């Protein structure tokens, strides 16, 4: 007993190696945080002040004004692309993309793993090669197809072409292959047909995997810039990420750039992915590491 208390009191000698470790970590943290803090600071002052003095240490009183204009004031001609509308569009894109990708990926993987398809392996590799052809590479043909199908300026046109890639299928296939064969057989004897097995057994088993996929795919969809820029020309369909660009276009004109509004939107644009990651984080780690089977 006395031994342990004694031990606890003994100071550990200061080791320079540890100090260095912390120094590196602190510098790294600052490197990531300072730009964010600068953005935050500019949202609290007027644009005039920002352009005169640059980022300052003082915190102004314009936060709520900037917030209101960022959310509710349109930046284009039509008056449709308010911050709130763009936020909604971005959410639809992020969630729609993530859910669509998970649904299609799961079902494709289900077919590939559990059904005796003639060319299952070949089909899988065919799907797999789409990883080599991301949307950016096939953007012109994709645009042409979307245009011919009349999908420009629709949510369908925004979401569906992005879904066409193999990542989710790939992960779900690996996951399904690790589900023990006995479980499948037990379900067969218990009278679960293909649809029941999928819904009653496979989907609940994949929970953590689905959560992990949702985070990755939501953030990926949310951050899309190029494709939304191409397919949406109506301002009412703009997403946040591309809307911010339009606000800062004033920089090139003679007006005072709307720093406060743009930076406020940038902050708002960061928020949902951060929230999703925080919310799903524990599941995410579980989905990638644990095998609860």
């Amino acid at each position, binding site marked *: 007993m006395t031994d342990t208390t004694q031990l606890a009191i003994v100071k550990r000698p200061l080791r320079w190696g540890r100090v260095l470790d912390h120094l590196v970590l602190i510098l790294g943290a600052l490197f990531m945080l300072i730009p964010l803090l600068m953005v935050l600071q500019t949202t609290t002052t007027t644009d005039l002040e920002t352009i005169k003095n640059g980022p300052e240490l003082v915190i102004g009183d314009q936060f709520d004004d900037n917030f209101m204009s960022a959310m509710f004031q349109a930046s284009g001609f039509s008056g449709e692309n308010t911050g709130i509308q763009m936020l909604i569009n971005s959410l639809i894109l992020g969630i729609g993309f993530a859910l669509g990708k998970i649904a299609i990926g799961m079902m494709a993987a289900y077919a590939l793993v559990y059904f005796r398809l003639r060319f299952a392996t070949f089909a899988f590799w065919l799907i797999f090669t789409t990883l080599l052809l991301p949307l950016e590479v096939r953007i012109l043909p994709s645009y042409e197809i979307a245009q011919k199908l009349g999908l420009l300026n629709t949510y369908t046109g925004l979401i569906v072409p992005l879904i066409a890639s193999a990542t989710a299928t790939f992960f779900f296939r690996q996951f399904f292959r690790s589900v*023990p064969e*006995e*479980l499948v*057989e*037990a*379900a*067969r*004897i*218990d*009278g*679960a047909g293909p649809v*029941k097995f999928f819904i*009653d*057994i496979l989907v*609940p*088993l994949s*929970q953590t995997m689905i959560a992990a996929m949702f985070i990755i795919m939501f953030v990926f969809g949310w951050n899309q810039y190029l494709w939304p820029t191409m397919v949406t020309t109506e301002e009412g369909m703009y997403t946040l990420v591309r809307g911010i660009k339009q606000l800062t276009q004033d920089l090139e004109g003679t007006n005072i750039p709307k720093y406060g509004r743009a930076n406020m939107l940038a902050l708002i644009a960061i928020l949902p992915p951060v929230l999703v990651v925080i919310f799903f984080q524990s599941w995410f780690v579980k989905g990638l590491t644990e095998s*609860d*089977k």
Partner: protein
Amino acid sequence: MAQVSLQNIRKVYPNGYEAVVPTSFDIKDGEFVVLVGPSGCGKSTLLRMVAGLEDISEGVLSIGDRNVNHVDPADRDIAMVFQNYALYPHMTVRKNIGYGLKNRKIAASEIEAKVQVAAKMLNLTDFLERKPSQLSGGQRQRVAMGRAVVRDPALFLFDEPLSNLDAKLRHQMRIEIKALQRRLGVTSIYVTHDQVEAMTMADRIIVLNAGRIEQIGTPAEIYHRPASTFVASFMGAPPMNLLKADCSEKRVILKGNVAVTANAADGPIVLGIRPEDIEVGEACDIPFTVDIVEELGAHRLLHGQLDGQDLTIHVGKDVAVSAGPIRISINPDAVVLFDAETGLAL
């Protein structure tokens, strides 16, 4: 409840491997049959064909009076218990047990009643709300049993259900399963590679080797009258002693002594004798040198060599022996003779 009949059942896997050669046997209503054999001999393949999880390449399988060759596993009126339990990890014990009934569109109240009965029978009532991951191995195996029992099937199928449990629990579960089967009177096929399980649980044992049946018989028949040297050396721990000997003029000569008379042609012959059928004593006729004494509490095993061949002797705890020369004799009534070439009993 049902009898099961296999007629010339054969299994050839898609890669051309013949895992089960044409095999026939019948199982009586309520009988507990154990399929036993070394790893890879086709036990699981045979069982899975009965379950409907594996296609039958050739032959006719009937459960009850129904040909079920092309019937879906769910409609064969069977229940199966797997080696790794195969419980649904995301469902509570209650849901695990009731899942099969739910799929049969049975009313929720009736399912609940049946689950309660099964849970009571298997001492699972306190665990109904738990997930499988919160149960011990033995409890999980009981849930798997519950899932089988609750369906009230015509046939139970077990594929090495106890091999993941420790020795003590295995012993206890062995008795529980057997008692449950007796009580319910359900025809059962039980696969194991553990010959103790086979001996203790079976009404009849089927010994398989390399996809073919070596012998079918009651545990006593299999133990005392093995049909081949394979069965003799597979069943029993320690196994039957197999000694190469010579037969001349209807007498089997072992180390210069006449061990037993035999109705066989002259020439080499294999003499089989269980370790406990060898007697030790001053008056015995065969000299033998004990190399090692294994002390097992209730009895002892003496190991040594006779004529350059390994021999194990089982003696009671009252027989005091230590390593060194002793005299033994072989009980002629317990001897089984095998053909030296084919290994079949004569």
